[in-house]
């Protein structure tokens, strides 16, 4: 029986191939995700390990609460002499290793937007793991080294000018050497080296280090040395680790930070697989229906039900295995493609030789084979119900009315359960992870429910979408519409595959439009000031001197600063963003007060705090209560709550404290954003130009934006993310197009004689092509319409709980219409191979076809 299955598969190789492709794409996406993320993690691990290859013990400052900027605090250099006294220390050196910004001679930023640039200080040969590909180490305060990757990217070489900027300062250096570390690529990240005093000066860390690297004398183990250093130094604010521990901690941190990336990619891979499952189910359903006579014949020859089931399952197994293996191979292409996609949107992660873990292979095989077997099982079961008499009669598969009713009830139940899960996820107060799980699971249930129910919707929807075509091309349009309505279940499943992809696309589009609109509204409503000063990356701190500089520009009435730090609410609260405002902030930002007002802010004391409404309610605190925070330097200020506000623009975070407290307890003395208010009658344009000019000279990282640019900057980031998501969904949409092509090919096969008759009575080739093309367009439009409705409903649902935070949904009608047009074109594309086949049918053969 197995041999029969393989042979019958071989006899229909083209169809088998398209079915296999559906498996291949989904599996390749999953495998590619694992390969890429494993590779990225491996690259990070390599970099961390390589850079500490000659180091045994590392001292860094302990960071109690991680900061958004990723910066770790520095510490006093006085620890170094103590370390050097420890027995067993062969060499110990303090190093600067801090995030900065790089520019070329023309003040153009070097490197990709979202990748870190490190300013570091030289370390002696005995600890150094970077090698000089060209040139030498910097020897004086005017020289710098730059990593080869960044240099190549920026077109810089030895002798060229490199400008380095920290929060406070900027200086120009001559590049004297190009460096390289290990084999891994740094991606978009880059590293510049200076002599120690200059590195400390430019980063404003005179008398401080970011880390101390220690190498042990022969015979002293890392562990022993670590213990001895710990004893000698005895400073609880410092973290003393072996090189191995340090690398592991950094690597764990990266895994935590980038873990979402893997999950997000897997979600998109899952969408593609889900769509693929529909295609497999549909293809097997149709082929089983077409092979009724064959199964009946086998039954008359004495084949048992189990054998029939076996033959279909073996076919599925063969497709699954082939698809999984090809998918695994395709995973490498996907991994490379995904990385290129990320680079295109500015996420340039480190890479190294592609990593294939056994886990990746196992998962790819399990998923590929599993999904094929599961999706083909119901059609296989149906094949077993074919009675032997079918060999002699032109029987249809038994489709009882009861089964239709059962399916409809099941569909409605699934939909309700799905909506229930979504509702619980949204309003049930579950935490982030399980809420996302509930919403995701609910979405899958709703999609399945709608797919099951959709055969009942095919008739009206085909009439709706087919009408314009009928008007355009009377007969061919009419026939196309009727053909899609002939077998509603088949059309429904084919359309459902596209529906899934487009539901996600529509959801994302509507949601993104809502975010963009809400940001624009929030910016309009909250910012009274005309201009803002910000780091060009939008979140890193800028020097407080930038604000002083701005105050000197004529026409500037007021510059109000805001500083930000991450802190933890003690007694079970999560990490929160805490901001500190100038007392006159009320003049530049419009705070939506629930309790208190501008006076509350003006009179705020160092032992008081104003909290966000939702922060207060989720932590069970209110005005009059006291709240304790843990700051990044380990301070635990206990503060009285004196006011409440609603943070609509996602600007202020969970709490507002005084700037003095921000400096002492939170160790944050730099600004995150400066709001500039102009004197009445001053020209915003001229002042912006003047500000840009003065910032360029002293603080090239500072960007001066007006309200419009602020909105555009946010919008641009959202658009980039949107572009990325569309690209990731494209694979799922492609799979569903294969589905349309496959279904059409199969139904043309069934209608061979009918097509022959049509041709014989005068239908031209191009009319035959048009008819098939319109069938595809109608099917695609049914899927698109259903998908868009579901996507929009989901966006509206999920926006509900966000309303309190100022999120308002807007419906991008133009984009949605464009999506429909796109879907129609996608249908035309999918129809190319089957329509060509239909038009090339030999009339005579087709007429005698059985």
């Amino acid at each position, binding site marked *: 029986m197995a041999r029969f299955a393989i042979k019958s598969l071989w006899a229909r190789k083209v169809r088998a191939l398209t079915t296999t492709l559906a498996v291949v794409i989904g599996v390749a996406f999953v495998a590619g995700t694992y390969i890429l993320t494993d590779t990225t993690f491996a690259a990070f691990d390599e970099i961390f390990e390589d850079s500490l290859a000659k180091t045994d013990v590392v001292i860094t400052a302990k960071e109690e609460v991680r900061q958004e900027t990723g910066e770790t605090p520095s510490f006093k250099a006085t620890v170094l002499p103590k370390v050097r006294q420890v027995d067993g220390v062969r060499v110990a050196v303090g190093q600067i290793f801090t995030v900065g910004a790089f520019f070329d001679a023309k003040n153009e930023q070097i490197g990709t937007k979202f990748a870190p640039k490190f300013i570091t200080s030289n370390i002696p040969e005995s600890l150094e793991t970077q090698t000089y590909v060209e040139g030498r180490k910097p020897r004086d305060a005017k020289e710098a080294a730059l990593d080869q990757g960044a240099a190549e990217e920026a077109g810089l070489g030895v002798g060229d000018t490199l400008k380095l900027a920290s929060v406070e300062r900027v200086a120009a250096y001559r590049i004297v050497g190009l460096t390289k570390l290990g084999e891994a690529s740094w991606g978009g990240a880059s590293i510049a080296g200076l002599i120690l005093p200059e590195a400390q000066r430019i980063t404003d860390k005179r008398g401080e280090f970011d880390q101390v690297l220690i190498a042990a004398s022969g015979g002293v183990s890392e562990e022993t040395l670590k213990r001895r250093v710990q004893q000698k130094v005895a400073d609880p604010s410092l973290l003393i680790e072996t090189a191995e521990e340090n690398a592991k901690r950094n690597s764990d941190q990266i895994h935590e930070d980038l873990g979402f990336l893997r999950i997000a990619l897997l979600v998109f891979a899952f969408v593609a697989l889900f769509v693929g499952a529909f295609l497999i189910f549909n293809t097997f359903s149709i082929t089983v229906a077409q092979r009724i006579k064959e199964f009946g014949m086998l039954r008359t020859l004495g084949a048992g039900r189990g054998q029939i089931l076996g033959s279909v399952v073996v076919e599925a197994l063969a497709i699954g295995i082939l698809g999984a293996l090809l998918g695994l191979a395709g995973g490498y292409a996907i991994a490379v493609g995904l990385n290129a996609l990320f680079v295109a949107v500015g996420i340039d992660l480190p890479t190294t030789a592609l990593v294939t873990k056994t886990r990746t292979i196992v998962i790819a095989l399990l998923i590929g084979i599993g999904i094929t077997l599961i999706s083909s099982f119901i059609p296989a079961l149906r094949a077993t119900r074919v009675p032997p008499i079918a060999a002699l009669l032109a029987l249809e598969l038994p489709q009882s009315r009861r089964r239709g009713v059962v399916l409809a009830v099941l569909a409605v139940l699934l939909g309700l359960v799905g909506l229930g899960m979504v509702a619980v996820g949204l309003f049930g107060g579950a935490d982030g992870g399980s809420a996302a799980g509930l919403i995701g699971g609910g979405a899958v249930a709703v999609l399945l429910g709608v797919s099951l129910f959709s055969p009942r919707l095919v008739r009206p929807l085909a009439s709706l979408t087919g009408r314009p075509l009928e008007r355009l091309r*009377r*007969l061919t349009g009419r*026939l196309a519409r*009727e*053909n899609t*309505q*002939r077998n509603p279940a088949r059309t429904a499943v084919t359309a459902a595959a596209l529906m899934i992809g487009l539901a996600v696309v529509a959801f994302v589009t509507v949601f993104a439009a809502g975010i963009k609109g809400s940001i624009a509204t929030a910016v309009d409503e909250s910012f009274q000031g005309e201009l803002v000063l910000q780091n060009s990356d939008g979140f890193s701190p800028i020097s407080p001197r930038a604000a002083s500089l701005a105050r000197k520009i004529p026409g500037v009435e007021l510059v109000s600063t805001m500083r930000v730090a991450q802190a933890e609410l003690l007694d079970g609260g999560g990490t929160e963003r805490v901001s500190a405002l100038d007392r006159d902030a009320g003049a530049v930002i419009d705070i939506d007060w629930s309790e208190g007002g501008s006076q509350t802010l003006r009179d705020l004391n160092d032992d008081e705090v104003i909290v966000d409404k939702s922060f207060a309610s989720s932590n069970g605190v209110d005005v009059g209560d006291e709240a304790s925070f843990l700051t990044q330097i380990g301070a635990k200020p206990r503060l009285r709550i004196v006011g409440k506000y609603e943070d609509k623009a996602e600007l202020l975070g969970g709490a507002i404290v005084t700037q003095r407290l921000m400096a002492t307890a939170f160790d944050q003395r730099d600004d995150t954003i400066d709001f500039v208010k102009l004197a009445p009658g001053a020209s915003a344009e001229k002042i912006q130009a003047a500000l840009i000019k003065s910032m360029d000279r002293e603080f090239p990282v500072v960007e001066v934006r007006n309200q419009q640019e602020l909105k555009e900057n946010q919008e641009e980031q959202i658009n980039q993310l949107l572009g990325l998501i569309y690209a990731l969904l494209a694979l799922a949409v492609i799979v569903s197009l294969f589905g349309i092509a496959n279904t059409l090919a199969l139904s043309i096969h069934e209608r061979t*004689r*009918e097509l022959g*008759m*049509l*041709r*014989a*009575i*005068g*239908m*031209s*080739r191009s*009319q035959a092509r048009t008819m098939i093309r319109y069938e595809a367009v109608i099917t695609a439009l049914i899927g698109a319409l259903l998908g868009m409705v579901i996507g929009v409903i989901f966006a509206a649902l999920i926006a509900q709980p966000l309303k309190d935070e100022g999120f308002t949904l807007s419906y991008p009608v133009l984009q949605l219409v464009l999506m429909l047009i796109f879907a129609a074109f996608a249908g035309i594309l999918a129809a190319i191979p089957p329509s060509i086949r239909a038009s090339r049918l030999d*009339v*005579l053969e087709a*007429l005698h076809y059985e």
Partner: protein
Amino acid sequence: MSESNGNVVTASEVARRYGEGDAAVDALAGITTGFERGRFTAIMGPSGSGKSTLMHILAGLDKPTAGTVHIEDVEITKLDDAALTKLRRDKLGFIFQFFNLLPVLTAEENLVLPLSIAGRKPDQAWVDQLVRTVGLEDRRTHRPSELSGGQQQRVAVARALISKPAVVFADEPTGNLDSKASADVLRLLRQAVDEFDQTVVMVTHDPDAAAHADRLITLRDGHIVHDAVPGSTADVIELMKQID
């Protein structure tokens, strides 16, 4: 070679060979004949005699390996697909053994299908007359699945006549019908010839069907072995016995 001698369809030296070399089979070995306007011709012959092949070539569905076919003044053996499509719309009507109606269209829609395909407006009076002739006035809006086999074939006959073609080709039109339904269809074909001056060429193995024709051509091994008025059903049966 054309209408001057009253022939709508003319075949000269038409040969059809399948395969090559030793395995080659001559289905038609050089047939020359013509079909006059307003005549009902039946083509008979045992299996493998070449009768179907002849009709396929006459109708432009197959190409001869040698010889030419003219329909009216057009040499169809040289036409490309687009020209053949146009020819089918303007000059040819087809009736098949299996009724070949589109299940998604109503009886009347199926009837006017050739005109719809050609993008022409049907002449309602002609449609009504045909519907009356085939006796399906009360079945106009029924779908094929709601019609009996005989009713379906009557729709197919009307469909073949709707464009008033130069010639109607019928391939075993009664092959799948009971005797009552067969009689209805044959009467219709006869009526088309007598009342509408249609030219009909029918391939059949049913002696009763052949007896309805004005002329009977009998083929064996790719040659015409008999060409005369068929006479009665009994005569045809006798003739076929001789040939076999």
